[in-house]
């Protein structure tokens, strides 16, 4: 148990703690920017996802919960969504720790998982807390679908999926691009930074190997020389 608590504490590095308020503010500003541009998206979890990817599920969950508490200060009816935001922070953090945001095919799979998790959580919270309908656009869509004869749960799922898919896709992509732009020195200050740095080095090696193989194919010799160096580098970086 104490080892478990220690492992949580390790995620809360000084940099992670300083990033939390920034991320909460980013969520807040992203959300109000989406409103100002009149976009049909929330875009209020960029900060949460950024922190979750860099510092893991616990810091991500704290960031998500805190963001919604701040929103609740201006709109008390947002309070139940605190659970959703914390859950999403944790989901993204767990996936990031498993290296799910390092290669493009993994990122696409991750986006689908994130959207699915979000839809399920939204529908569950909306049903438990508000009885199925809230003051959001997706509730209007759900109501229209039910009026058109669609079953209750299908309407709930489809209506929130329509909003979550573009929203979470854009959010994940923005954060992935931001992390790609970060220096290794900066990444390593966070507990998950190692995952991204390793992936970056592996990608570089793959690219190098690909180039070697291409060069070898051109010269008609097999590319062997790059083999041992690859394994060395990857064991060393663990």
């Amino acid at each position: 148990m104490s080892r478990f608590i220690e492992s949580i504490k390790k995620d809360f590095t000084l940099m992670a703690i300083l990033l939390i308020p920034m991320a909460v503010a980013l969520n807040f500003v992203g959300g109000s920017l989406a409103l100002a541009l009149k976009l049909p998206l929330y875009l209020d979890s960029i900060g949460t996802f950024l922190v979750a990817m860099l510092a893991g599920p616990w810091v991500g969950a704290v960031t998500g919960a805190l963001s919604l508490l701040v929103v609740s200060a201006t709109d008390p009816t947002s309070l139940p969504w605190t659970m959703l935001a914390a859950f999403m922070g944790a989901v993204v953090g767990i996936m990031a720790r498993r290296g799910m945001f390092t290669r493009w095919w993994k990122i696409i799979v991750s986006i689908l998982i994130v959207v699915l998790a979000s839809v399920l959580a939204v529908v569950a919270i909306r049903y438990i807390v508000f009885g199925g309908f809230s003051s959001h656009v997706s509730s209007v869509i759900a109501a229209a679908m039910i009026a058109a004869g669609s079953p209750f749960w299908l309407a709930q799922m489809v209506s929130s999926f329509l909003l979550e898919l573009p929203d979470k896709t854009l959010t994940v992509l923005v954060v992935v691009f931001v992390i790609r732009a970060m220096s290794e020195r900066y990444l390593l200050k966070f507990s998950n930074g190692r995952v991204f740095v390793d992936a970056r080095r592996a990608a570089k090696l793959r690219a190098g190997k690909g180039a070697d193989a291409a060069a070898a194919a051109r010269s008609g010799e097999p590319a062997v020389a790059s083999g041992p160096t690859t394994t060395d580098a990857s064991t060393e970086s663990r």
Partner: protein
Amino acid sequence: MTSVTMAPEAPAAAGSRLARLHPLTQLGIVGLLALAALLFEWPVGVAVAVVSFVLAAAAGRAAAFFRVWWKTILVLCLIILVLQTFFIPGETVVAELGPLRATQEGLDKGIGFAGRVAGIGSAVLLLTVILDVHRLVLALEQRGVNPRVTYVILATVNIIPEMRKRMTVIMDAQRSRGIETDADVWVRARAFIPTIGPLILTSIVSVEEKALTLESRGFSIRGPRTSLESLDDPAGERALRKALIVIAVLVVVGGVLQWVL
């Protein structure tokens, strides 16, 4: 969108007894109100909403309370009521409106949810108009909460206005470079990235600078700290908080009994 809790002068402006209470006492009162609304049927929720409004008025913040209240809580409750009434299937049809049928079952369910939402929402809103985050943080520190936790709370409250200002500057700058912020939805969506991008990058850089500044001022040092401000916690309030805890336990027991019986 300026929140009352984010204005440091909020309690001074109020100056009433309720606003001067110890932050933990305020939390206790609001928590008890919300708990009662959560555990009992909708009439209690409505009563909690009324009590919250009266308390906010007693603190001299009725206007601030009502302005947020009708725009968020009242609107949501009406939506819940209408949508539940028309879209929850039931046997007893109360009214018909074109293809839509209002059912008694839906109406009952709607009133139940709306009452709870109104009660809990109003209690939380009461907290936001009487609680001063700076005093809360001070109270937490005096009770030995890790300064890292209190830093996160305080910094969050302080950074948001600063960040909003930065966003306005970036948006103006990008607009002056010819970015469209009022065209159709695709054009507006494309304006999102060049606005949020610089904001993310500058905040990331500033995090590192903040880390250096805080480290050089002994942020992660261990040991006791002193505060520039002081916070009264009179014996009467400590007794009041104990009473609140006892009442809360009774409310929980009552609520559970009501479910069981």
